[in-house]
């Protein structure tokens, strides 16, 4: 969703101090010409966008010709939610042996409750129709947002799991271009994976 802060930035870029999180807003333009704003922190979850910002190409907004508005807004939603958790420091919980230590949450970025919140957000983000799911995958791939790509791929995998070959073909509309003999031959090659 477009986030418009009170202090909307002008299009002039300011020098970003290395390592600090600026409140600068980045404009992202979808393939159908719609503009979205995101904090620099959230936008940088996309490695593609991160490089463009660092190369100074982000001044007048970043055009994303591959990403339609509907998908871009979902992507930005994801980035906004996950940006705060992206900080990698102290990802190791100090876990002394035979310690009764329950609280190391100063070092974790999200408490248990927040983690649950993120999980359910992620689940609802990818609970969409197949076409949208694939659009998200391609967008996440193009924008290099690993977390979102993995999330969407996991959803596809979940849809394939425990289904027979015929069922998978039906769900994903895969045309079986094997002849009966060809299919039998492939099955024989990998027989070890088929027998129960």
């Amino acid at each position, binding site marked *: 969703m477009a986030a418009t802060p009170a202090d909307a930035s002008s299009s002039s870029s300011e020098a970003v101090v290395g390592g600090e999180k600026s409140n600068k807003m980045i404009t992202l333009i979808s393939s159908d010409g719609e503009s979205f704003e995101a904090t620099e922190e959230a936008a940088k979850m996309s490695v593609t966008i991160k490089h463009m910002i660092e190369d100074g190409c982000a001044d007048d907004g970043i055009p994303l010709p591959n990403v339609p508005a509907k998908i871009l807004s979902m992507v930005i939603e994801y980035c906004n939610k996950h940006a705060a958790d992206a900080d990698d420091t102290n990802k190791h919980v100090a876990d*002394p042996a035979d310690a009764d230590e329950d609280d190391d949450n100063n070092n974790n970025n999200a408490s248990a409750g927040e983690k649950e919140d993120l999980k359910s957000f992620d689940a609802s983000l990818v609970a969409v129709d197949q076409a949208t799911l694939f659009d998200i995958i391609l967008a996440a791939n193009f924008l290099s947002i690993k977390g979102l790509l993995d999330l969407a791929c996991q959803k596809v995998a979940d849809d394939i799991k425990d289904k027979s070959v015929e069922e998978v073909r039906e769900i994903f509309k895969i045309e079986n271009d094997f002849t009966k003999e060809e299919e039998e031959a492939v099955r024989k090659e990998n027989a070890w994976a088929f027998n129960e």
Partner: protein
Amino acid sequence: MSTCKKTRAEATSVVSSDRLSSLPPKIKGNVLSRLDVREAVRTSTLSSTWRDAWTNMPKISLRDGNFTRTRFVTLVDMVLALHMGTIEEFDISSEKSYHDEFARWMLMLSRRSPRSVTIKLNSGPRYKISSCVFSIGDLKFLQLENCIISLPRAFQGFKSLTYLSLNNFSSTDRNIQNLISFCPVLKDLILTTFEGINQLNIQAPKLEYLRVYGDFEDINLEAPNLKVAILYLGHQAKAYQSVPIVHDKENHIKKSLGGLSEIKILGITGSFMKYLSKGRILTKLPSVFTRLENIYLNICFWDRRQVFAAYSLFQNAPNLKKLAVWVRMVVNPLPPSITHSMFLVFATPYELLFLLFLQSYPSSTWDQCQARILEHTLQMQMDHLVTASV
């Protein structure tokens, strides 16, 4: 159906199109990696485009759940033989023994140059890690259990290894020392439950996280970037048994922890505090741990040397925020209103001495909770304070 080879339907022209098959190979591989391996292999019969898709999947996870022995062996053999692409992650785990197959699996695996290897074959005698594993040049992540570590003579090191975890292993001082020092970018090191090691020499300039759990006699840490160190010395260890030598001039805290100028979290558990209290006790250590914020301690209060050693540590940690202390026996548990896991046993003046040391910290640097506990326990002991010999 036509007899000649069918052309694929154009992905864009039809309303209900097969977008799964037209995903870039890398993404297909990502999806396939998330399936059970056998299921991934079965996708080879979906259509002609899928025939070899699984052979490029980046992650291979071979878990021996309820397979029969022969079935699992076939699975591993076939996957390792047929897989063609780069293996980003490989993991194999089983409760059964595969000692006859292990060597050939390692050979096949090492030929694929995986980036990450996890081996958890926890049943039976320890598996000697073949020398071919030590020649996997691009290895970034290595996790081994139930194994014997013996480096080949021509070991070049793992130039890209950032994570190393060895659990339930046997080796020698030399082997472990070399393994670690030949991994120049090692960031995380975990060594738990080992045999055959007396002296742990850890030279790791980029190390940030260290966890050691086992029996050893001595430890030397040359890890100037270490941020978290959790050290557990077993109770059976020789270091625990030996009587402190009168003429032992070395200060063990200095020797083991002295170089850790960046340390942020320090866990001293098991009998490690006893080890640290050997030798001379210095109140002023050569290095001040300015970044040290958390200390977890196992300590025997009735051992005066340990109390003093702990004190010298606190004195050199000016920015300490959090201290958690455990004793193994809780004689008089604190009243239920105290919820934090901090138990102090009061029996001798030395505990009171300890409390006084704690009290010397300005309460503003403490967690609110900690301060409350301290106040409470100090109150309880106020009477005794008057008569204790400080």
